[in-house]
């Protein structure tokens, strides 16, 4: 039996009708056509599907859409400014060559942005541990860690610039 739910995705509230067994990632990709969130595995291990649910990173491939009813979701599409200016973490991935094929990148960036919430001064070692649930087949991780280090710093500068305004 289909269920009616309401999701606020990237600030926009939408009513959706989904099956109880619809995954959040399928609601995002298929119902809302936001295909930036990827599916890289069937075992909840790769992290390509990471989004923020009420501000916290979760695997959207291991969350039911009905479990997100009434809650707020941010996907990779929700990070950049409306004029297209990249989020500081996205800019850092670009600057530091934190991606090659880019398949893992949406999940990496969403996880990395969530790290700023819990540990804005994370060391390279702490960054590696935080990204344990995000698998990359291309980069060898070094540039991802550099990008996250620099992205965390840029987010702090951005935050203090905003606070000063």
């Amino acid at each position: 039996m289909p269920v009616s739910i309401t999701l606020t995705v990237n600030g926009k509230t939408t009513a959706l009708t989904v099956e109880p067994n619809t995954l959040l990632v399928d609601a995002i990709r298929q119902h809302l056509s936001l295909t930036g969130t990827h599916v890289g595995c069937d075992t909840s291990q790769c992290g390509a599907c990471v989004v923020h649910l009420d501000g916290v990173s979760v695997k959207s491939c291991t969350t039911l859409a009905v479990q997100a009813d009434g809650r707020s979701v941010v996907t990779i599409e929700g990070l950049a400014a409306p004029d297209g200016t990249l989020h500081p973490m996205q800019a850092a991935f670009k600057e530091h060559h934190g991606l090659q094929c880019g398949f893992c990148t949406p999940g990496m960036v969403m996880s990395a942005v969530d790290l700023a919430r819990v540990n804005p001064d994370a060391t390279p070692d702490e960054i590696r541990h935080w990204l344990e649930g995000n698998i990359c087949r291309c980069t060898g991780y070094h540039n991802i860690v550099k990008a996250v280090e620099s992205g965390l710093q840029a987010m702090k500068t951005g935050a203090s610039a905003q606070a000063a305004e």
Partner: protein
Amino acid sequence: MYTFSYQKPSSVADAVAVLTGDDDAKAVAGGMTLIPTLKQRLAQPSALVDLGSVPGLTGIRRDGDALVIGAMTTHATVAADATVRSALPALAALAGGIGDPAVRHRGTCGGSVANADPAADYPAAVVGLGATVITDRREIAGDDFFTGLFETALEPGELITALRFPLPKRAGYAKFRNPASRYAVVGVMVAETAAGIRVAVTGAGPSVFRVAAMEQALNASFTAAALEGISVDAGDLNTDLHASAEYRAHLVTVMARRAVEAAR
């Protein structure tokens, strides 16, 4: 995934009523074990009963000489909680070492204990710290809770509402992680409690177990050196592609020594 219906009960009693009335209905907590199982079509529940909407199942409180943790409290919350970190740092470390951040943001202690995965971390905490599992109808001693591979003392439809951990004098947890899944190849909780030393091992056998010889040795001297020469019998342990039974037996002693050294 097979199809199922979805229920959002508003109380523990409502959830239990649905689960008791329908043998094929299943509770969902964080979904970090159940949803992957459903995706692989290894289970076919008629209905999912979402505990996420049930009030009163989350939170951590100090109750005399014990910590009471609601069943729906996530691993991330336990790991970051100031009370847990100061009163029972071994449990904060155990919860913070489960899976990865996104798993810890959804996965719950009640779901982990109910699931009784042989490689899960929480069973070592429940048995090693002598915890009590509180359900909608009774209290079950940790020592009596885990009855076998993915088997527990829970009756059909019975829900865990909280876990009560008596505070030890000191405790330490060490695990040898599977590098891909982070589950325990072997995990050992060592605790000095009011009633003596407890040593609980997860990951190694079909279900969590205590090691009497290690408990005796540590009662005499709470040092890593006291465990020298004490090992468990590989005959009862698991062999899989990650580790042979003999290697797991070896790891039990190594992890027990590290747990003693980590005990605070």
